[in-house]
């Protein structure tokens, strides 16, 4: 049964990691390389996430990506359309993707305005030749491969992490709050995606056949312990505890949470005290990846 949430709210949030391996293994027409299999547990997780999101009325996807790295403020895509070829500089043999996406420019400017009103440095990105980062593209593709919704892509502002993880976290908390206010003000029904892995130490070599799953495992047991600890916090509705431990998690597991996406998401969702749905966990070239969802409506119904 489809639900029709009132406008001006975040209707769902998801931790939606962006390993290009997942798109590669899906063999979508937009991606040039071909695979025979790979990382099914994660891809099935995305499948279940997509099925749940199909029940929602969503106007726009807002994605916060670790692979659009900025230092001087947070930048936001702010032109109506971007198209081109995205080639992953790390895994170009796996990801060469032809993208064509629409942007909700009004919402983008609202996020910029709300962020600035909160004292943050935000910049609209208005260069038409700009190449959209592959993290945003992969998370959006895996969540909504039909590309029938406009998106707003938000950069990962790394500057404040230079002063310590706690300082960076606080910036992302304020950015999440600003994002929520922008959604409410513009009347959008928004899906928010945090496009990051959990633990993030890669192998520096790969098998001759990238999708050879006999070689896929976590890089280090300590990473796995950390990943499970954070996942369990989120599954138990302990998102504030997860935030409290995030600085140590970042250092201890070399976590991609350092880019702030998950903290931004949790903040925008108001630090959920209800359980997150775990759709899947798996490793990709040694990194730990979880697909998780937050559904405020389900939490209210409970």
């Amino acid at each position, binding site marked *: 049964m489809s639900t029709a949430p009132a406008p001006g709210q975040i209707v769902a949030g998801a931790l939606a990691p962006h390993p290009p391996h997942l798109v590669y293994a899906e063999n979508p027409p937009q991606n040039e390389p071909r695979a025979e299999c790979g990382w099914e547990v994660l891809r099935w997780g995305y499948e279940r996430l997509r099925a749940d999101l199909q029940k929602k009325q969503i106007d726009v996807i807002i994605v916060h990506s670790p692979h*659009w*790295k*900025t*230092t*001087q*403020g947070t*930048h936001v895509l702010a032109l109506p359309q971007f198209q*081109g*070829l995205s*080639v992953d*500089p*790390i*895994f*170009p*043999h796996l990801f*060469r993707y032809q993208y064509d996406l629409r942007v909700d420019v009004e919402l983008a400017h609202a996020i910029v305005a709300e962020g600035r009103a909160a004292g943050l*440095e935000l*910049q609209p*990105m*208005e*260069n038409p*030749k*700009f*190449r959209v*980062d592959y993290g945003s593209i992969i998370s959006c593709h895996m969540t909504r491969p039909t590309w029938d919704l406009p998106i707003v892509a938000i*950069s990962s502002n790394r*500057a*404040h992490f*230079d002063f310590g993880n706690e300082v960076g976290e606080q910036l992302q908390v304020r950015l999440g709050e600003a994002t929520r206010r922008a959604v409410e003000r513009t009347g959008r029904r928004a899906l928010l995606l945090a496009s990051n892995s959990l*633990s993030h*130490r*890669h*192998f*520096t*070599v*790969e*098998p*001759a*056949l990238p999708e*050879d799953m*006999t*070689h896929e*495992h976590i*890089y*280090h*047991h*300590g*990473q796995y*312990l*950390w990943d499970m*600890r954070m996942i369990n916090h989120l599954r138990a509705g302990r998102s504030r505890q997860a935030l409290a*431990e995030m600085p*140590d*998690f970042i*250092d*201890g*597991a*070399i976590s991609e949470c350092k880019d702030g996406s998950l903290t931004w998401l949790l903040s925008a969702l108001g630090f959920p005290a209800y359980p997150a749905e775990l759709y899947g966990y798996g490793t990709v070239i*040694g990194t730990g990846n979880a697909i998780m969802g937050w559904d405020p409506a389900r939490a209210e119904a409970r």
Partner: protein
Amino acid sequence: MTTSTARTPTGSVELALLLPRMPHPLLCPDGGPGVRRLADGYAAARAQLDALKPDLLVIYSVGWHSILGHLLQSDPRPTWTHVDEEFHALGAIDYSFPVDVPFTEVVIQRATARGLAARGVNYRGFPIDTGTLVAKQLLDPSSQLPVAIVSCNVYADRAETIILGKAVRDAILSSGKRVVVAAVSNLTQRLFPRPVPLTEDRVSSRQDDEWNQKLLEIFAEGRLEDVSQLARTFAAQARADARLKGVWWLAAAAGAHNGYRGEVLAYAPVQGAGCAVVSLRPDASAAAQLEFDEDDVDIFRGDRGVLAGGEARAPAAAPTRAPPTPAPAPASAAPAAAPPAAAAPPAAISAPPSVAPPTAAARSSTPISTSAAPAPVGAYPHARRVGDLLFLSGVGPRQPGTNQIPGGPVRDAEGRPLPYDVAAQTRAVIENVRRILEAAGSRLEDILDVTVFLIDMDRDFAAYNAVYNEVFASIGATRTTLAISALPTPIAVELKVLAAARGPA
């Protein structure tokens, strides 16, 4: 009459350059005085390059990150339009230039022979980083000069980066070409969190600025290898761009020496980052002594066996079981790789606090402390036994209980130097070593290896060595003697000892 001798062509590095990676000198050269200086510095570097008429420009940019080993651009003519992810408002960079693919393939071969994982990338639209493009466009705006472009592996530390530089040098020497090598890296990379007007720009941290200027003094003396060996210290003190690994690469590619005529063509801030254009022209008459002696690495022996690490770590008693109805393996399936030795985990990864298992060291070793030896000055035991070996912490001459130093301290409380007797200190050190060994159930005769630290090699070696010989001549332990700048207490000599343990652990 003239005679000629046939010679094998030998390539050479004609010029080494350190170049900033910010887009401003290319896209807004008149945006502010600092950017103007950098653009002028680039122009001066270009003039040097033009005068040399080299065959090839090799670029290593810390802005091209790789993870799977080392990537090299092998598209013969990359063509695209690039927009910087941070400074997109400055405009776009259109590019199309020739890549020396045969040379690149030789670099890949040489890197592989040195134990690195390296491969070429030849994909339409592959993103070339801002720094590489800025350097290439400003040094060769007409795009006539062939280039080779090398990535910066994010996990590579000094050894791996130097070996990569050596692989490039191998290829240069065997190519017969006259080459310019360029590392594209800022010195310090602490940008202001908000944009500042370029007319009001400055290096964002005074400490960064002071360290940058110190480094540039050494560059100006042509001491490239000395700067390379200072990189770790620099990175510990300043917000170094990519740990200054660009300089590691540059020094190795250029031959790891100090024989250059150095010239700082520009130094200026860009949005708080410390940027410099430095030129180093080979000049044998400029050779200077090396400041330091970090190890010189040739072959990489890193964590390349990690893919099979899970198998290597699996308990030996746990048999692997096939599924009840195994599917037939595809005909093309590769045979299972033999598990290599278990890869050591990176030191940075740790287990979360409440579930951290005891470390291997804590499970299998025994700390040893004794009141018969001087109290430690930090949180460490006098020794630790692991299996049949005893590892001693550094031992000095201080006397247990009183902390008096036989032979006298080397300086007073205000740091003024004092006369001291290193022979007396050495005897006291050896006596303290003996006490610790005996507390652990061993004797001096069980010592296997000694590392000796002296604060003044010239002054003290002979006297220390005479005392050492009295005791150790019959023991036959291996020994290394190092000169260091200081010890934690006002002493002149310290011993680090490895010994055989006696009796059950």
